[in-house]
């Protein structure tokens, strides 16, 4: 009476219902989780009904199904993978969340594969037909996932290589690798008669080569200048006065995607600071900044002299009786350059004895007041 597909979904429905009861009784008696689980149960019950109604789609069942107790038609690795996944889940609970999630993924993937394989093998006594219906069910899942994993491995491996070699070597490798991909791809396109095994062999060898290079590069570590920059905190640029940093991102103005969150633009021109707020046409000496929400200000230097914008954001107690000013600032930038300054002011202006301000160090008598409602 019940088809294999409907048994699967009925089993899932029963399982989810049991989990719902356990969840409500032992974990959380609020309605949210129970509603989610019951929604899943409703979905699987619906699928059970559908599969029962259409007799598992085109899968032949009943008379042509494999007789009970028949030998499995193919061997399966999924029980082994499921065991590894289960061990990963348990080990992950004791060690690290990543192990847990990898185990969970292995467990879910092997469970799905195992169930569908068993289901397809019960469809008929024709092994080829069974394999085809298994493929019809699982290939739309398997191929994108495998492609994603493969691409991810190659991207991560290639990035490790680029971080390990010198800048010049990196550029050369990029050009050579790109040219090689273009050349080999063109050959494949122009010579469709090439043996499939040769094409697969070249692709697999290349992927293995990239992955191996990535592992080697990762074990070798970052290139020297990156290690030095990290150790010496080259890019943390705490200098908010008139000093000029030796190390900073010279192309920061090229990454002003932050414009989408810019509440105001501050311009330095002819030794004068002016502000223009988003959506307001006229210039001002006072800007209103959102309370307790990160936002961006764009600083534009129109003067010949290099300048930076420094924000005074109140004070904070560093130890008993000792307070220090909270400052944030852009880098020194030259004429016609821009930098974005993103910060957050948690409290209203009322919380500060001194007004929050934006100034240019070394430029007297010019400041923009920041008002926080």
């Amino acid at each position, binding site marked *: 009476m019940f088809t294999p597909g409907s048994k699967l979904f009925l089993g899932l429905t029963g399982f989810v219902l049991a989990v719902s009861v356990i969840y409500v009784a032992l974990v959380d008696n609020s309605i949210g989780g129970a509603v989610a689980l019951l929604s899943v149960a409703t979905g699987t019950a619906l699928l059970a009904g559908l599969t029962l109604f259409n007799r598992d789609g085109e899968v032949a069942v009943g008379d042509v199904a494999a007789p009970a107790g028949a030998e499995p038609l193919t061997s399966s690795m999924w029980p082994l993978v499921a065991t590894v996944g289960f061990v990963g889940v348990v080990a992950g609970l004791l060690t690290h969340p990543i192990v847990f999630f990898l185990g969970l993924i292995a467990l879910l993937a092997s469970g799905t594969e195992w169930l569908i394989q068993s289901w397809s093998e019960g469809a008929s006594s024709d092994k080829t037909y069974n394999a085809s219906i298994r493929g019809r069910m699982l290939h739309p899942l398997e191929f994108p996932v495998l492609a994603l994993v493969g691409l991810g491995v190659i991207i991560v491996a290639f990035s490790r290589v680029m971080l390990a070699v010198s800048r010049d070597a990196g550029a050369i490798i990029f050009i050579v690798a790109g040219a090689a991909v273009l050349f080999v791809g063109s050959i494949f396109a122009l010579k469709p008669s090439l043996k499939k095994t040769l094409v697969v062999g070249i692709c697999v060898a290349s992927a293995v080569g990239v992955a191996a290079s990535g592992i080697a590069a990762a074990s070798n570590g970052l290139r020297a200048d990156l290690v030095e920059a990290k150790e010496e905190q080259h890019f943390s640029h705490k200098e908010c006065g008139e000093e000029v940093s030796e190390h900073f991102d010279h192309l920061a103005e090229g990454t002003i995607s932050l414009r989408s969150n810019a509440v105001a633009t501050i311009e330095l021109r002819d030794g004068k600071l002016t502000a223009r707020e988003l959506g307001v*046409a006229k210039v001002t000496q006072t800007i209103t900044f959102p309370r307790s929400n990160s936002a961006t200000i764009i600083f534009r230097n129109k003067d010949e002299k290099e300048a930076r914008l420094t924000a005074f954001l109140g004070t904070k107690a560093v130890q008993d009786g000792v307070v220090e000013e909270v400052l944030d600032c852009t880098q020194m930038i030259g004429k016609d350059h821009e930098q974005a300054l993103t910060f957050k002011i948690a409290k209203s202006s009322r919380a500060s004895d001194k007004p929050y301000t934006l100034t240019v160090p070394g430029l007297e008598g010019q400041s923009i007041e920041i008002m926080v409602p």
Partner: protein
Amino acid sequence: MSTKIRRIVAGVSGLAATAFLAGCAKDAPQDTWQPKGSNAKIIDDLQQPVFAIAGVIGVIVTCAVVYCIIKFRDRGQAMPEQTHGKPALEIGMTILPALILAGVGVFTFRTVFDLSKTSDTQMVVNVTGQQWWWEYDYPAQPELGITQPIITSGQRIIPVGTKVLLRETSRDVIHSYWIPALNGKRDAVPGRVHTLRLDADEPGIYAGQCTEFCGLSHANMRMETVALSKEDFAAWVANQLTNAKSPAEKTLAKEGEGVFLNQCVRCHQVNGLKKVDGTPAIAAPDENVWAGAAPNLTHLMSRNTFAGAAFDLLSKKCRADVWGASSETVGKKYLAGVGEECLNQTDLRRWLRNAPAMKPMYADPAKLTSTNGKYRGMPNLGLTEDDIDKLVAYLSTLK
């Protein structure tokens, strides 16, 4: 016509009539077909003809499908001759919809560009979404009498006939701001500032609600825009720029101020409120609330709603009086605020007694490990009935 077909036709007609009549609601403050502002009218001018065209096409297609289903249903007749393709018909059936869509597209693009115009903005309001309420802050705009930033929540006040630019953002998740009578919707996205222009033709209260699912109390995240005459708006601004006054000594409200200082000021700012030692009481929602802010309550009783505009501060009768007022009188009635005789004490007390019971929120102290103990929403503060009496008395003074 057989009995079965007759029943089907009657059933479908009944459903269609029900759906049709459902559109005849009288009290529908969020009706998109009743524009009350210039941008909403621009949208309406587009949606009326598009809806008509789509409706005519929908009726033609439905009739054709129903005709084919009935006319060519299986009655045991012989299989008709099988043919493949009819190029002229296929090309025609492709070109005709493409032309219709192109025509609609031209007017749609023109509307989109018209709606994005902000060069003639006359006033700016920052709109910040947070689970599950809206905060409005008005940057200083001296030409409108706003000499200092104003902050409020739930109800946004605008002067009538003024082109207002909303700068929308969010502190936590994506929300969407929509007052159907005044303009289309615009998402409020963390880390971005989106602009939306709107204006109101006549004084009135225009309702809306968050239209992007934003968590547990999404359905309770409401908002209203109150359009006032320019004179009434000036009066509202003047009131908002003042600080709260401390209640007279030895009154219940004064005792309530003490309760407020002990419990509420951790998150809620009341401008002008002073601690016992005379220093300003500064709220610290950034230390207690996950998204970093809580509504400023300085002029709570100048608003008609609380808790993300989900509940009325006005009693039913007074609410009906304000919401049902004509455009000439609504301003005065709104500016009267919430007097003692109009205060909806029942809901306010229930809220103070156990806020999460009225509006679902993540505010159970036992379940806040993922947010470092910070709340999303207002927790149950465990106030005594005595404290609640005092707090209601104090809050009633925040006009």
